[in-house]
C-alpha cells in the first residue's frame, strides 16, 4: 500500500502551473502588458473583453489557470527561500507561500466573478 502524501499533489499542481505559464503567459503578457498599453496594437474595446470574460467557460479556464500559476510561483519561491536564504523556519515559509497562493486564487475567484 502506497502512503498518501500531500507533497506529490502540490508538485503536480506546480508542474501544471509551469506548463500553463510557459504556454499562455508569453502572449498574455505581451498583449496586455506591453502591446496594448504602449499602443503597438490597438487595444480591443472594453465591450469585447467583457464579452469574452462573461463566458462561463472563460471564467472556469482563467480561474484554473491563475490558480495553478499561483501555486507554481508559491512552490518555487518556497524552495528558493530555503536554498537562497537558508532560512530555518521551513514549516512557516511553506504555509506563507501556499497561503499567499490561496489568497490570490480567492481574489481571482471574486474578480472573475465580478464581470457577471
Amino acid at each position, binding site marked *: 500500500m502506497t*502512503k498518501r*502524501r500531500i*507533497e*506529490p499533489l502540490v508538485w503536480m499542481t506546480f508542474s501544471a502551473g509551469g506548463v500553463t505559464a510557459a504556454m499562455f503567459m508569453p502572449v498574455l503578457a505581451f498583449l496586455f502588458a506591453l502591446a496594448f498599453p504602449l499602443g503597438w496594437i490597438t487595444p480591443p474595446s472594453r465591450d469585447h473583453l467583457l464579452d469574452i470574460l462573461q463566458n462561463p467557460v472563460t471564467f472556469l479556464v482563467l480561474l484554473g489557470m491563475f490558480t495553478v500559476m499561483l501555486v507554481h510561483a508559491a512552490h518555487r519561491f518556497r*524552495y528558493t527561500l530555503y536554498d537562497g536564504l537558508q532560512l530555518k523556519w521551513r514549516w512557516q515559509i511553506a504555509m506563507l507561500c501556499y497561503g499567499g497562493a490561496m489568497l490570490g486564487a480567492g481574489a481571482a475567484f471574486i474578480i472573475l466573478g465580478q464581470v457577471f
Partner: protein
Amino acid sequence: MADSITLRVTRWRPDKNTPPGPQEYDVPLRKEWTVLDGLNHIKDELDQTLAFRWSCRMGICGSCGMNVNGEPRLSCGAFLTDYAPGPVDVEPLANFPIARDLVVDMSDFMEKLPRVKPWIIRDDDVTEIDGEYLQTPEELDAYKQFSMCINCMLCYAACPVYGLDPTFIGPAAIALAERYDLDSRDQGARERLDVLIEHEGVWGCTFVGECTRVCPKHVDPAGAIQRYKLKAAQENVKAFLLPRGMR
C-alpha cells in the same frame, strides 16, 4: 610547456586548532599526468603527511572525488595540462565534512544508500532458481544508464540542495533506486517508493541539474529524479483514489 605547475592543496588536521587552508606544492607538469599523479608525487617526494583517497586511477572505482578549481572531479580524470599554467586548487569534495586533508567523511552517503534498497527485490521466496533470470537487450537498456553509477559522490558535491539540507537523500541514491525499479528482474518498486515519497526523498530536489553535469559516468541523476517524481505523483494519486485493496 612549462615544466612544473603549482597545486594549492587543502590541509587540515583534526588535532590542530586551525581551520582548513591551502598549502602550495610544485609538481612536474607532464603531458599524461592527472591531479592524482600530482598528489602521489607530493606524497612520494615532497610531503608524506598528505592524506587523500584513490584506488584504480582510471575512473571506475569512484574513490578519488575532490573539488578541483571549484568543480567536483575525479582527480584521476583531471589532466594537469588542462589547468596549465595553474595554480590548481585541490580541495576536499564539497558538501561533506572533512576528516583530514582531502579525505571526507562519507558516512552520510553510506547511511542513505541502503535506505533505497539498491538490490534486486523479489516477491518469490526462492533461494535457488531454475537457471538464470532472462532479460532482453531492450529490458537492459531501460536501466543500463543508471547502473553506471560508481558511487563517487561528485553529484552530492555539486548539489546545492544537499549542501544546504543534509537530510536530502541525494542524487545517486535516487538514481540507483530508479536503476532497480526499471530492472525487469526487480519487484521492489513499492518499497523504494515508500522511502522516496517522503519529504527528504525526491521532493527536496529543485532540478538544478548540476549533478548530471558533473557525473563522470553520464548517469543523469537529475533526469532519474524528475521521472521518479512523476512516478511517485501518479502512485500517490492512485493511493488517494483507489480503495485500500486495489492500491
